[in-house]
Structures are given as C-alpha cells and as structure tokens.
C-alpha cells in the first residue's frame, strides 16, 4: 500500500498527524508532509484512520 497526499488540497488541520504520528507531520504553515509513503503494515490502520478523518480528502491509500 502506498500513501498519496495532495498537498494543495490540505487545509492544515493536523488530523492526520493525530491519527498517524509516524506517517504524517506538518510544515511551518501546517501543510501535511509525508514521513513515509509506504508505511509498515502495522501502521496501516492508523493511516486508514487518517484518510477517513482528513477534512480535505487530501490523503489516499492506493494498492500497488
């Protein structure tokens, strides 16, 4: 699984960081940054949570 982030949709809410600290961070303007675009399997549930709560639908999980 690969994580995709559409940074120009991001509204800097930080919800993804709350859901998956090891996968997302925010820059100084609050825009999300991907720390890992192919996260370890044990982080998948957290990433799915982040996809679900992101208010901008800016995060996607794609099967490879």
């Amino acid at each position: 699984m690969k994580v995709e982030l559409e940074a120009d949709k991001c509204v800097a809410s930080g919800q993804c960081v709350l859901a998956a600290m090891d996968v997302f961070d925010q820059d100084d303007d609050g825009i999300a940054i991907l720390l890992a675009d192919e996260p370890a399997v044990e982080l998948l549930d957290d990433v799915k949570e982040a996809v679900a709560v992101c208010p901008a639908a800016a995060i996607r999980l794609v099967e490879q």
Partner: protein
Amino acid sequence: MRRIVVVGASAAGLAAAETLRREGYDGTLTLVGDEPLAPYDRPPLSKQVLAAEWEPERLALRTADALAALNLDLRLGVAATGLELTGRTVELADGSALPYDGLIVATGVRPRRLPGEGAHVLRGIGDALALRERLTPGRRLVVVGAGFLGAEAAAVAWRLGCEVTLLEPAPVPLAHAVGAEVGEILTRAHRERGVNLRCGVAVTEVTEDGVRLADGELVDADEVLVAVGSLPNTEWLAGSGLTVGDGVVCDEYCAAAQGVYAAGDVARWHNPLFGTSMRIEHRTNAAEQGMAAARNLLAPDAGRPFAPVPYFWSDQYDMKVQAYGYLRGHDEVAVVEGGMADRRFVAAYRTGDRLTGVLAVGMPPKAIRRWRQAIAGRAAWQDAVRTEVPVTEVS
C-alpha cells in the same frame, strides 16, 4: 445485522458508510442522498470554488473507484421522506421503502433564508457556481451575516474586485462564537481592505434592489448573499418518535433510538468531555461522528462515548483561523501566545474553572498542539495558562 441504511450522502454519511465496511460489515449498505451528485466537500465552496480557482470536480470526496469498492446500494437524487421506527423502514420520495436493521441519520443542515426573493445562499455546488458567475469586478455584493461563512465569501468577493458590504445584526461579529475581542480582530481585517462592515443592523427583507433594514433604509446591491445560519434537516423525521430539537437528539453514543444513530451537522449529542449537549457544524466533526456512530451501531454493547475536541478552521484573506474545543458560552478569553495586534496569536477560552477552547491565527501547528492536548485532558484553567509570560486578559 444485514441491512443498514445511511441517509445523507455527504461527509458524515460517507464516513459512516466507509467505517461500516472497514469494521467488517458485509450486509446491504444503502446510502441515500437527495442531491444528484456523489459525495462532495463543502468548505472549498466559499473558498477555492467561489474564487474560481477550483472546478467542482475537485470536490469529490472519493474517486469513483473508491466509492465502487464500498459496494453500496447508492440512491442519489432521492430524498428520504419518512421514518417508521417500529416497523424499521425508511420511506423515500420515489415511493419505495427501505427496511433496515440499523439506521444512520446524516442529513445535515440547510441555510436559513430571509423574506423576499432573489438572494443567494451558499450550501451546495449549484449555489457556489451561481454566485461566482456574478462576482465580477465592480459589482456590488451585500452579504447578510458576518459569521465565518459570510466573512469568507466577503473576502473572496473583495479579492475578485467586487464592492462588498457586510451587514451584521450583532454589535460585534462572531462575539457569541469566539468572543468580542477576537471578533474585532477578524473584522478589522475586512475594514482595512475597504469592505463596508456595518454592525447592529437588522435586515428584514430582500428586495429587487438590495436589502431592506429594520429602520426602513434600503441598502442597494446587485447581488445579495444571505448567510445567517442554518436549520437542521429533520422534517422528514416528523412523527417518527425520534426526539428532534435543534437537531436529532442523541445520547453520548450518538444513539437517537435503538438501532438509530445520527452524525454530522444534524446531530445534537451529549459530549461527555464538556458535559454538555452540542450540535456542531464543522467539517472534521462530520467525519469523526460518522465514524463513531457507525462503530457504535455495529457494537452497541461495546459502545464508546463520542467525546471529541471539536476543531474548525476558516480562511479569510491571508489569515488562517483554527480553533479547538468548545468556545461557546465561555466566561473569559486570554491571549496566551503572540499578540492580537499583529494577528499572530493563540487565545485561550475559560468556561468555569476549565480550559475549554483555543483559537489561533497565524501560528504554526506545533504551537497549538499542546493546547489541544490540554483541552482533551480537561486541564484546569489555572494550570493551563500558567506561563512565564503574563497572559493578557481581553474579556
């Protein structure tokens, strides 16, 4: 449970449907929405869409593939018209009836209107496209209501070269929501740019030429946008036996009755973190509550109270406003970081002896995060605001 119906095909309804599948529910899942469009996002309507930066296609909440993967019985363009609680059926406008074992109500809100014809409102894609077509340079736009929605639209219209008048019935915009001082700071940003903000004026009617005020004055306009709050879409539940009172009334598990849950803008539930009943019109809450309702519907015996720290943001000109917690009904506001004068600050909100909210403008996210945690941890006001720098009290 083999048949679940979700009514309302937007942020909350979609989050509920996705969560049901993620949690392993593999029965029939019907998603009903009265709009003919696949679930889309609303916040960009008063921002990028109104500014003509984004076309509506960008608002789709999920790709067609992701939607298809949910294996939904998708009923778009048809409204739910009735609910039979005892018989467990939802009635649709096309005359069909949907039996259910579990139901999630996520029908959102609609804009309040004013007497008279011809005013714009801003809730759906069609509304935003109709308004943006009119926002050409030099046109006179009157926005009634200087809440977050009206203020965002005013800011965009100003940027597009319109002559903008913003009318607000309260003496200070947003005072009930964020406090008078913060309200002043945000509205100063409008005045500085030449937006004509008039407070303490009541609009009684929309006319062909503009709007009529309570004292008889006519404020001329080419276009009028009414942004004076919203009404929960609960009419279809009349006579069902569900308790409705400014929203579908739920307990702390988001349950409105056995097997019936509500989520998003339409839901009024008891938030145990703040010990109060609330109904929240924030984008993040719609998703979080949709998820919570879905989980509790599937496992009522292991139900988890829905106790979020509410979050919202708003974009106005070059300012990003972010707020965590429950600011309404606060007793005191204090600036705890930065300063209001240069519009870079964190303001903390006290209700009783607790820290119940923070609002930040122009601050990096890391500066806000610890405040959010303090709210989630029910921090006492005294502990939360004790810093080396003395705080400035503003109300």
